[in-house]
């Protein structure tokens, strides 16, 4: 029993460490940058999938927390000369919690897709506001964000930045995984599966949905802070609703109710972007087509839970092969 429970985390940990080792040894600085971005995408996708999959709240406006945190970091480094990445990340998490907390109050009144659209609308309003605010760089955005320092060590070097981002992402994913498997996660999933039944047995569903939303917002904010120090610039497009599409697509592709799903989905989508952008400009088409195709065949994603996933299909296929090997061929007369 314990073996089965530990299998997934062990596999993921091994892969994570292998990834880090490989990258540091073999990747040039351009690839290191892209890999760092991929790690951030993973964190963003895991957070969004937690809100959408585990809690069941369509979250189309989470780029608000991502971009908001990125802008906060930009302001902190360029105008207030804050350099310590722990302060930057910490402030981003706090921002996520505060903003997420305020918006989650709306969950009392609106749920489902309507709530998703409202969060999207709020992000759009932020997009417009940032575009006309000179303090926030209007449509040029803000640049010159310092990569920050970690206990005095500058993260300018791509290797160091990768290590730091890797550590933060791994920590973030572990936190979400632990929460999902905890009592909190269990009750959240219960509230998602059937709000009426859950509340009938006394579960305060609003509290769990709100908590999940806030957690998601905090981690999205964390991802946003990482993006700011990695890329060095922020602009208003980060608030535009299509910017929130990548984590959602990654979650859909991989399986939105799991942890490994958005990780796999982000990796696949990132590889497509990296690989395809050297060949043609059609990554948009490819990403959309692949995600749609996978979704239509396996609605739970490639590695999702339940019977509608690629993983389940693979399992039943291997079972069928094993079975046909064991039984002798019978011909009916």
């Amino acid at each position, binding site marked *: 029993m314990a073996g089965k429970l530990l299998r997934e985390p062990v596999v993921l940990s091994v892969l994570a460490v292998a990834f880090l080792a490989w990258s540091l040894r073999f990747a040039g600085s351009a690839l290191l940058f892209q890999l760092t971005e991929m790690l951030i995408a993973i964190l963003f996708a895991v957070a969004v999938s937690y809100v*959408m*999959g585990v809690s*069941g*709240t*369509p979250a189309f406006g989470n780029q608000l927390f991502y971009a908001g945190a990125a802008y906060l970091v930009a302001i902190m480094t360029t105008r207030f000369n804050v350099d310590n990445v722990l302060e930057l990340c910490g402030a981003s998490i706090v921002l996520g919690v505060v903003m997420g907390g305020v918006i989650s109050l*709306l969950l009392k*009144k*609106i*749920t*489902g*897709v*309507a709530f*998703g*659209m*409202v969060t*999207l*609308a*709020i992000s*759009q*309003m932020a*997009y*417009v*506001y940032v*575009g*006309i605010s000179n303090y926030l760089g209007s449509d040029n955005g803000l640049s010159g964000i310092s990569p920050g320092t970690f206990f005095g060590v500058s993260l300018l070097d791509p290797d160091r930045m990768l290590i730091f981002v890797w550590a933060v992402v791994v920590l973030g994913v572990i936190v979400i995984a632990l929460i999902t498997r905890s009592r909190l996660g269990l009750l959240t999933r219960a509230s*998602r*599966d059937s*709000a009426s039944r859950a509340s009938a047995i006394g579960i305060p569903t609003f509290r769990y*949905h709100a908590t999940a939303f806030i957690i998601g917002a905090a981690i999205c904010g964390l991802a946003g802070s990482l993006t700011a120090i990695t890329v060095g610039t922020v602009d208003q497009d980060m608030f535009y*609703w*299509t910017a929130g*599409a990548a984590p*959602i*697509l990654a979650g*859909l592709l991989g399986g*939105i*109710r799991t942890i490994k799903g958005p990780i796999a989905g982000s990796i696949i989508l990132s590889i497509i972007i990296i690989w395809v952008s050297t060949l*043609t*400009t*059609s*990554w*948009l*088409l*490819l*990403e*959309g*087509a692949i*995600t*749609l195709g996978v*979704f*239509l065949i396996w*609605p739970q994603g490639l590695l999702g839970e339940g019977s509608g996933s690629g993983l389940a299909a693979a399992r039943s296929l291997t079972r069928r092969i094993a079975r046909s090997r064991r039984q002798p061929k019978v011909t009916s007369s």
Partner: protein
Amino acid sequence: MQHVVLPLVVGIAEGLVLALIALGLVLTYGMMRIVNMAHGAFLMLSAYLIAVLLGHAWSESVLGYVLAAVIAIVIPTAIGMGLERTVYRRLYGRAHGSAFLAMFALMMVFQGAAQQIWGVSPLPVKVPSSLMTGYVRFLGVQLPDYYLMIIAIGVVAIAITAAVVYRTKIGLWTRAIAADREMSAVLGANVQLTFGLMFGLGSALAALAGILLAPINQVTISLGTDFILEAFAVVLIGGLGSMTGAVIAALVIGIVQSFLTIDYPPLSGYGIYLVMVIVLVFRPSGLFKTANAGLGAESV
């Protein structure tokens, strides 16, 4: 007078275009309970088609423009109906959240394809000058011909849609299916046919909107996504299953936006979203309630 009449006319025109897009969404949602994220794709497609078709010798006359417009409506409608039979059919039973996201992926496919075919720069749209540059004087104000044409076409299109939904047999089936799909099928409604035709109608309306918008907006791959969000806001404000609500909400928003753009520009980007948030907080099911629509918590 100028200050009031011109923005009002422009607002009504833009509101009607928004209504056309929103009606398509309401039709799809009412029947299929799918919030069709890819609806904007038909709008984008028709805008690109009309941009490509105009500017040739044969399309320089008004008749040529009409012909080009018909082509630019028929093709996206046909594609829409084809998609309904293949892709959308697979989504009917699914949880609403995941269907919504699949539609988003579909939209990306359209955008990617358009980008591959037509590139990233906006396409110019050469509408025959007789339509674009004329003015009509009304109450001492000069009103652009083009906007008056939009109003005329919009009103006619909405009237036709209303006639179809409220006066034809298939409209009856549509309303019945929206109320209770299984029962309607049991009572003899041809659900497949109705879905197909109504989806086609919705796509045609979106395509029409795209044609009307093309000369006054930039024809780029983001045209679909830009307007779809506003259309969704309209549908949510008006009430998810309600056609009347959508039309009224669209007109109100169009007029409000128009006046904001002229009198208070900083607020013009926010207007629609602010209205949506306020309406949804106080009346989550929108301004016009319908018996069966309304969104609850869903799992993805």
